[in-house]
C-alpha cells in the first residue's frame, strides 16, 4: 500500500499540469479571501478567521475539480492499463489513489487556511476586527480533503474528466443554488453541503434557518464526511468490478 501510494504521489509530481493545478487550487482560497478583505467587504461582525474562510468555497471547488481530473484522466488517456498491470490489487490501487489526492489536498488546505488568515490579517486595519478562533479553520482542511476524495472517486466512476468536473461543481454549488426545490429536506441537504459546513463551523455569514443543519455544525460535517465515504466506496466498487 505504501509503495502504491508513493507511486501515486509521483504521478502528481511528474506531470507539470497536475502539480501546478494543485498550487492553483491552494492559492484560490487565500487570494479570494484577500480580495474580499482588501476591498473592505468584510461585515462588521466578521472576525479575521471568518474573513479568511470567505474564499473557502473557491478553494474546495478547485481541489474537487483537481481530484476529479487526476483520477478520470487516467482513463481518458489509457494510462490506467499500466496502473493495473503494476498494482493489480485494485483495492490497494484505489486506496493509494484516494490517499494520494487526499494527502495533497490536506497539506494544500492547511497552507490555504494559514495563508488566508495571514493575508487577511495583513490587509485589515489593526483593531477593526477581532481574531476569532483560528482553530475552526481546521474545518477547511476536513471539507477540502472530503471534496477532493469525492472528486477522485467520481472521476473513477465516470471515467470522464468533463463529466466528473460537472458532477463535482454541481455537488459543491447546486445545494445553495437550488436548495429551495428540496422543500423540508432543504436544511438537511444544504446544511450538510461542503461550503455551508465551513460557514456553519467558522461562524461567518449568517445563514438562513433553512440553510442551517438542524443538528448543529459538527453533525453537518459528520454527515458530509459520511456522504463522501459512501461516494468513495462506490468508486472502489466501480474500480474493482469493472474492466480496466
Amino acid at each position, binding site marked *: 500500500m505504501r509503495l502504491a501510494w508513493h*507511486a501515486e504521489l*509521483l504521478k502528481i509530481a511528474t*506531470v507539470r499540469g497536475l502539480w501546478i493545478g494543485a498550487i492553483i487550487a491552494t492559492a484560490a482560497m487565500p487570494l479570494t479571501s484577500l480580495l474580499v478583505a482588501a476591498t473592505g467587504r468584510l461585515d462588521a461582525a466578521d472576525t479575521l478567521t471568518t474573513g479568511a474562510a470567505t474564499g473557502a468555497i473557491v478553494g474546495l471547488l478547485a481541489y474537487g475539480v483537481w481530484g476529479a481530473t487526476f483520477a478520470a484522466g487516467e482513463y481518458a*488517456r*489509457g494510462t490506467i*492499463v499500466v496502473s493495473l*498491470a*503494476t498494482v493489480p490489487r485494485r483495492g490497494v490501487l484505489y486506496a493509494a489513489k484516494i490517499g494520494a489526492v487526499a494527502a495533497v489536498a490536506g497539506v494544500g488546505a492547511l497552507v490555504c487556511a494559514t495563508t488566508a488568515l495571514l493575508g487577511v490579517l495583513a490587509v485589515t486595519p489593526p483593531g477593526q476586527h477581532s481574531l476569532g478562533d483560528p482553530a475552526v479553520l481546521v474545518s477547511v482542511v476536513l471539507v477540502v480533503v472530503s471534496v477532493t476524495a469525492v472528486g477522485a472517486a467520481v472521476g473513477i466512476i465516470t471515467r470522464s474528466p468533463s463529466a466528473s468536473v460537472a458532477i463535482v461543481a454541481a455537488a459543491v454549488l447546486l445545494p445553495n443554488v437550488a436548495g429551495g426545490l428540496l422543500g423540508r429536506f432543504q436544511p438537511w441537504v444544504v446544511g450538510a453541503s461542503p461550503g455551508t459546513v465551513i460557514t456553519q463551523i467558522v461562524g461567518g455569514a449568517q445563514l438562513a434557518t433553512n440553510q442551517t443543519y438542524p443538528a448543529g455544525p459538527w453533525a453537518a460535517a459528520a454527515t458530509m464526511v459520511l456522504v463522501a465515504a459512501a461516494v468513495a466506496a462506490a468508486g472502489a466498487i466501480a474500480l474493482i468490478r469493472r474492466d480496466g
Partner: protein
Amino acid sequence: MDLALGPSGRVRARMIPAPAGDRVAAAIVVEDATKVIDGVKVLDRISFTARSGRVTALLGPNGAGKSTVLRAILGVDHLSSGRATIGGRPFREHRRPVQVVGAFLTPDAAHPRRNARGHLAIVAASNGLPRSSVPHALELVGIADIADLPVSHMSLGMRQRLGLATALIGDPAVVILDEPHNGLDAAAIRWLRVVLRALAEAGRTVLVSSNLISEIEPICDDVVILAGGKIRAASTLADFVGGFPGAEGRVSLEECYLRIVGGS
C-alpha cells in the same frame, strides 16, 4: 538483464541470468477462458499454456481476441468464466507483480506530459524497485538520451521502446508483449528478437502477440492461433508446421497460419 540496444542499433549482448529468488520461472495457464462483452462472446473457452523457457507466439487476425486474452491474464479485464494464472496464481495475487510479470499492452500507456524517466520511476516506485532500475531500463531499450522528453514528443517507435522498458524494468520471470513490433525500426526489431530469445533461453516465459508472422517465426517455440475468439491451434511450432504438407519441403508458419484462419 544485460542486453542493451545501443545508439547505433547494435545489440550489446551478455548472458541473461535465470530468474532469481522468489521470481521462479512460471508458466502462464489459461483455462476455459470466456469473455462476453455486451452480449458478444469475444473469447470462447480458450485454453492454452505458455511454458517457461519458451517463446509462445499468440497469433490471429484483427479482432481475434489476442489483446483480450493478454488483458485477462494480467487482470486488466475480468473473465466472464474460466481462469488465467501465472505460476499457479492469478496475477493479482503476486507480491511485487512487476518482478513476476513484465507487460507491454499499448504504446500509449504513459501520460503524454510525463517524460520517460518519470514514467519508469512511477513503475519502479509502485513495486519497490531500486532507483537504479530506471536508468538501467532506459539504457536497455536505447532511449536514455531522450529520457527527459515528454512522451507526447516521442515517435511511435520511441513510445514502443518505453513500453518495453516498462515491461523489462523489473527483470521479470514472465514477459507478456502485445504487438511489440509495431512502429519499431529495423535495429529495434533485431534487438527485440535477440532479447526475446535470450529471455526464453534463460528460463523465462515469453508470451508475445504479433501480426508480423515472418518476424515471430524464427524466435518462437510454440504457437497459439486465435480466430473469432476461439483457439484454432495450440502446439509447438514444429508440430504445427509439420502438420501441413508443403509442395516443396517445409511450409512457413505464415502459410500454415493463413490456411488455418483463411485468407490468401
